[in-house]
């Protein structure tokens, strides 16, 4: 396939090893000019590594990357840049303390004759670059104050800058590495539009993602990798989601018949993974397990009230920025400025700190497991036991190691956290296992309330199905689950009811037949004043 006559960029027989892990194993792929070419696969499949090898961020052990017939120097970001290959990547350096204009001109700051910075020239140039993509960005704002979507647009603008470096080819290939992982729905839409426009103007786009909907929305061809090996390249028009899933995981999932409230094939795939509502919500007349009354936090959440019965999964829908994570923070009393009342099993919870909620049997898996969840300097075992250490300890806070070990061993087994040992560090675990570890921390036998924020973000498809099963298990055990998810099919498949939020308020509640993607979006995007 690398002898494709239309190919602009060819990666030939690429191998790359990280320590004992073969990240890429003899992978060949060819990209044509003007196409959006997706690289897909589970976490660890090598899709991101391949993207980075192409852009010169990683140096391959074997194989070559050629652009327009010229072979790139392996592992040289500069050489790739000069050949017109750019990468748009979350972790790529941007100076959040500088303005948009300064960021865009960092490589060549325009100066006046006196040697001072020519601010006007800088602004003009920045505007020219950014406003073709997004006219609403104020180039004088500090970059850190922009939304993630706008920051990313600035990065794309920088990638398209033809004067970025003297002698460099203008952009011909742009690698997008998981571009939507921190974007809202609206921002994602906008990004996909930009990607399509760029391809239409003749650029080759390499789109690294594991989000089905995006692949089908904007890509022309898709190459699937599995365990570092090439599986197949297909035209997106000729392939179905179940086929792609099969290529990604190497086996076909059993997909039971469709249900009316699950739109599209992705939900069907989810059901195969255990995403279907596989638990029975408690009786309708059971007293509520969790009651939330008038929870507010200045500027974030405005007077949210709801209640959840034992065994019920309450989904919280809404766009990014609607205040969903902020609501969970407020309920769990992580947000010290939040006000309102929370009752668990009818008892008022002391909300001066998260300890009251934890004592009442609540657990909270926050959105960002690296920033908010895990301790990377503590062992897997300690990561689970940390919130309960005091309760298990003897007087004067001396740890009861035996009791801790007992608690941890059963949970690591029950939750199938794959770690070399309980003493491993979380950094040695895959993303999915890190997430399971965090869920295992909170999902103990006596868990009454679980707050889950994007519990499957950034985990592979296998871990996803296990996490779904865990959620069902917790609900079946009588816990009240509050689930925030930006993945619409997941939200719909797991929830018994969905509360839709917008601008920190509850915009509406959907149950039964009314729980559809379009209803959620309608409520979420409705003007707050009209409600």
């Amino acid at each position: 396939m690398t002898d494709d006559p239309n190919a602009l960029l060819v990666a030939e027989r690429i191998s790359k090893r990280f320590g004992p892990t073969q990240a890429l194993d003899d992978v060949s792929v060819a990209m044509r000019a003007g196409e959006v070419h997706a690289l897909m696969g589970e976490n660890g499949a090598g899709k991101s590594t391949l993207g980075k090898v192409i852009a010169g961020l990683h140096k391959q052990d074997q194989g070559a990357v050629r652009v327009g017939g010229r072979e790139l120097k392996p592992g040289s970001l500069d050489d790739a840049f000069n050949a017109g290959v750019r990468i748009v990547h979350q972790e790529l350096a941007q100076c959040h303390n500088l303005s948009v204009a300064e960021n865009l001109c960092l490589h060549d700051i325009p100066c006046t004759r006196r040697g001072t910075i020519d601010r006007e020239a800088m602004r003009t140039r920045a505007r020219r670059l950014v406003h073709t993509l997004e006219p609403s960005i104020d180039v004088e704002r500090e970059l850190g104050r922009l939304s993630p979507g706008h920051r990313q647009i600035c990065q794309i603008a920088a990638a398209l800058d033809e004067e970025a470096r003297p002698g460099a080819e203008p952009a011909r290939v742009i690698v997008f590495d998981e571009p939507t992982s921190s974007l809202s729905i609206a921002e994602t839409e906008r990004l996909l539009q930009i990607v399509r426009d760029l391809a239409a103007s003749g650029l080759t786009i390499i789109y690294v993602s594991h989000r089905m909907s995006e692949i089908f929305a904007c890509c022309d061809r898709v190459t699937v990798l599995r365990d570092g090996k090439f599986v197949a390249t297909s035209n997106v028009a000729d392939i179905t989601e179940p086929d792609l899933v099969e290529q990604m995981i190497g086996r076909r999932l059993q997909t039971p018949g469709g249900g009316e409230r699950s739109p599209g094939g992705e939900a069907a795939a989810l059901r195969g993974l255990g995403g279907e509502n596989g638990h029975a919500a408690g009786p309708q007349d059971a007293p509520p397990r969790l009651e939330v009354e008038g929870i507010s936090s200045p500027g974030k959440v405005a007077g949210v009230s709801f209640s959840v019965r034992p065994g019920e999964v309450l989904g919280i829908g809404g766009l990014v920025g609607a205040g969903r994570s902020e609501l969970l923070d407020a309920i769990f009393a992580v947000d010290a400025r939040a006000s309102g009342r929370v009752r668990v099993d009818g008892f008022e919870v002391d909300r001066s700190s998260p300890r009251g909620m934890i004592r009442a049997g609540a657990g909270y898996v926050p959105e960002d497991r690296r920033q908010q969840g895990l301790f990377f300097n503590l062992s897997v075992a300690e990561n689970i036991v940390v919130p309960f250490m005091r309760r298990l300890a003897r007087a004067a806070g001396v740890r009861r190691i035996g009791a801790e070990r007992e608690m941890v061993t059963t949970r690591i087994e029950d939750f199938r956290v794959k770690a070399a040992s309980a003493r491993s560090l979380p950094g040695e675990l895959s993303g999915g296992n890190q997430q399971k570890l965090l869920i295992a921390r909170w999902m103990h036998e006596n868990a009454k309330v679980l707050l889950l924020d994007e519990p499957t973000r950034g985990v592979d498809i296998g871990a996803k199905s296990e996490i779904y099963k865990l959620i069902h298990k917790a609900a079946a055990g009588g816990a009240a689950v509050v689930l925030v998810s930006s993945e619409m099919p997941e939200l719909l498949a797991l929830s018994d009811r969905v509360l839709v939020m917008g601008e920190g308020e509850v915009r509406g509640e959907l149950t039964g037949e009314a729980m559809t993607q379009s209803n959620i979006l309608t409520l979420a995007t409705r003007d707050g004043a009209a409600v």
Partner: protein
Amino acid sequence: MTDGAPESPKPSPGARRAVTRLAGAQEAGLLLVIALMVTALTMFGGTKTVYKPVDIAPGSTIEIFDADGAVHAPGTLPGRLIARVVVTAPDGTAREHAAPVRYTESGGVASVLVERRVNKFLEKENITLVLKDASFFAVMAVGMTAVIILAGIDLSVGSIFAFAAILGALVLNRMGSDLSLVVLGMDLTGLAGVLVGLGVCVGVGALCGAANGVMTVGLRVHPFVITLGMMAALRGLTIIIPQAVSGEQSISGFPPGFQSGFFKREIMGVYPVPIVIMVLIAIAGWFVLSRTVLGRRVYAIGGNEIAAKYAGIPVGRVKVIVFTLMGALAGLSACMAIGYLGAAETSAGAAYELEVIAAAVIGGASLMGGRGSALGAVLGAVVIKLIGNSMIIFDIDQSWNQVVMGGAIIVAVVIDQTKARLSPG
């Protein structure tokens, strides 16, 4: 591993175990360094001449002979002319000591000294001197390690040390050197001195530390700034207070039970109490950091403060406790120092903070937070003092001490970071 990150290299179990073992072996590495230094100092440090007294039973007769065999009255012959000395015990057993040998009398007690060549380094007095010097810093370094694990820093330890020392000295000085306290027939004079000294020094230190902690947490200012301010303010008070009270820069005259009775008690020819305290604090530090809830919370906060908040850890309270303990240990160290030295000076403890931080860092504490150990801190302090001692042993200008110590800090941190890169996560 977030989704956008590179597919993480996953070491095989064997390699991982090896790396983990290495990473966990900060103390082992330090012990190795100490062993190497001790070996080198012993082998290449050379010897020196000392005169050691021989045992003389009471009532012995002492005969002194010159090179010609003539007998001289004790004390009349210059030492270099003495050829041999014969000591005859009352039971008739005679022992002869050949030159080089010396005879002295002090306070009516005669003693015969024989010359011995001893290893400059590996000698009881030198070793205890090194360990004693280390102990004052090591005790503080244990607290500093906890502060650094929290991703904090305490620059005020030297000033707290001086402040606690001066206040402790003022109180002990009031108790006086002729204090006597007998309760129910038991002489509690010594105990009272020790308890009062400890109480004042440790109490003052703990209060200063608590102030650091409360301000850091309450005002949400980085501890660097708070403790920098505290360092200057306490140094000022350390000079002002004794001036106002007694007008002296140096305060001495403590109850003997406090000094020779405890902190400078002679046991088998050496003064081991500060060293024993250092060992006890090392053990206590290890226990608190690894076997108590507080200790693990310290690591958790240092590893990820936001996650600690989400896990219900009382972050502010833990910080205040740790800073308080740090202050208390600085007070304890001050108490050990004035008890050993018999005086407190307003200039005490200057620049100690740097040496204490250095000990913690050499001992494996990461200034990024989340890593460090109490035992490492103590060994770090010993390494620093060994460096100082080697300057003396090898007759190198003391100023080089600073240069070598600076190098040691940088090397320790570089090794540490290399290890962190090798280990997963």
